[in-house]
């Protein structure tokens, strides 16, 4: 679904390469979590996939990004918008219209979708994101969590194949964040979309993603299943905050590459050790 080959990029006026010969491919329906400290190039990579780079942000660009068979650098933003949906970090700055349903229709209006079909898609998106009761509300009447849902609905209405979420929960409290993350997982199951998500709160996302990719200084340093990546002894060096349980498990030298990532798994593996010892 996504193929990035030898991608390098530096912004106009900057000598430093934000992305350095990146190679990554993502299969259809995968949920990939991208982590790394700020400045590692995560957001730049995401923007290279939906086309904001190079179309909105110019600079030195080499390499290739292919999304659903389309070459990003040669396709227009509008074409790419029908394939890739992008949810930004700040809920406030991605809702432009005066009512929720009008905002959800924004993308469809831009694409010239017929009014009847537009109405259907808007209603479908409202239903899917469970925000039907908010259809006529104005943006200032919504909480941040609701705003994020509206943003996702607006993007989903365009029926993209790929959903990109750039730190979607950083301004939300953990409870709302957890609900949002589970919602994204359900969208993947219902719609079969591919999901790329940048998120710092590993404890929320580690269990729902298929793969974790760790970036540092413009390159990919680790890539693998959540357990593979979290069990790596150097993962915190790259600016990744390990979940407390993972830290504990490591200090007990548990699990190897099948490291427990949440309290239940840790309890279970300790239980096994005790049984092993008794026998």
């Amino acid at each position, binding site marked *: 679904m996504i193929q990035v080959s030898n991608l390098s990029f530096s912004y106009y006026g900057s000598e430093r390469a934000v992305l350095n010969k990146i190679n990554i491919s993502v299969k259809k329906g995968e949920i990939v979590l991208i982590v790394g400290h700020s400045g590692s190039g995560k957001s730049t990579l995401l*923007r290279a996939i939906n086309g904001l780079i190079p179309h909105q942000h110019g600079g030195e660009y080499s390499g290739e990004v292919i999304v659903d068979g389309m070459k990003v650098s040669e396709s227009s933003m509008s074409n790419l918008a029908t394939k890739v949906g992008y949810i930004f970090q700040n809920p406030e700055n991605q809702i432009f219209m005066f009512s929720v349903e009008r905002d959800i229709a924004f993308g469809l*209006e*831009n694409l*010239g979708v017929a009014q009847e079909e537009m109405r259907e898609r808007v209603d479908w998106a409202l239903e899917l994101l469970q925000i039907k009761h908010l259809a006529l509300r104005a943006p200032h009447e919504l909480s941040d969590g609701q705003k994020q849902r509206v943003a996702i609905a607006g*993007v989903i209405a365009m029926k993209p194949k790929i959903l990109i979420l750039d730190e979607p929960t950083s301004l939300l409290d953990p409870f709302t964040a957890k609900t949002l993350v589970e919602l994204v997982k359900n969208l993947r199951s219902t719609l079969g979309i591919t999901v790329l998500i940048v998120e710092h709160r590993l404890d929320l996302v580690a269990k729902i993603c298929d793969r974790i990719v760790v970036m540092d200084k413009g390159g990919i340093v680790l890539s693998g299943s959540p357990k593979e990546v979290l069990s790596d002894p150097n993962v915190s060096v790259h600016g990744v905050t390990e979940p407390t349980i993972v830290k504990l498990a490591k200090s007990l030298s548990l699990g190897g590459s099948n490291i427990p990532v949440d309290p239940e798994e840790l309890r279970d593996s300790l239980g096994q050790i005790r049984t092993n010892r008794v026998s």
Partner: protein
Amino acid sequence: MSLDRKMQWIAQGFLFVRGHTVVHRLDPRVRLITSLSLFSVALLSHSVEELSIIIAIVLTIAGIAKIIKRFAKSMLFTAVIALIAFALNLFFYPTSPHQAVVFGVRLFAVISSTSLFFLTSTPDELEHVMKWMRLPADFVMVFVIAVRFVPVLLLDALQIMDAQRSRGLEFDKGNIFQRMKNVIPVMVPLIAVALNRSLDLAEAMDSRAYGAAKKPTSLYHLALRRSDYAMLGIVLLGVVIGVYVSLYLILF
């Protein structure tokens, strides 16, 4: 503290409440035509009596729309301007007192008939009217974004002021120079915040295909109903009468 409350009041003003009266339910284009007609007849008029009738009509419509309170606030402001206009005219122009009065009252009628439209229309409706008038799409978008984000920026400004107060900055103290200097710690972060918001917006808009189709479609569309045609009829009649009376009075 009172500065804060004023700003919050303005921010609220942009975030208005939708009305449900007969007036609000009219097609916004009909409301626009009504306001424009009152405006034009007032502009042509030279008689205080005719102008008073027009003002009475404006107030009646405002009454039906239940916006008298909000209307009264802006009308107070307009009345002051009208009085100033009257005084200036009287003292600086070789006109008779009667003509100065007409000038003042006309100004009042003209301003109040236009604000009638704006006070009874939601930004959504304004947007649709602008599109109907074939204004360029980017221009309409600028309007939409402005109405959407001006209150947000006002609230940002309040946050910034609070943050600087927490660093010992007293906004209510000091002479005029000090107070002017105090604007910088608010302006600089505010501009930075506004720029950031606009950059984010640009990315979000592009990511949702803004500018893709030459003829974007719309979720809602404006449609005239019987009540709209009825109102248009009344307005037409009113304009004919008004113009006739004005011409009659001018010629005779």
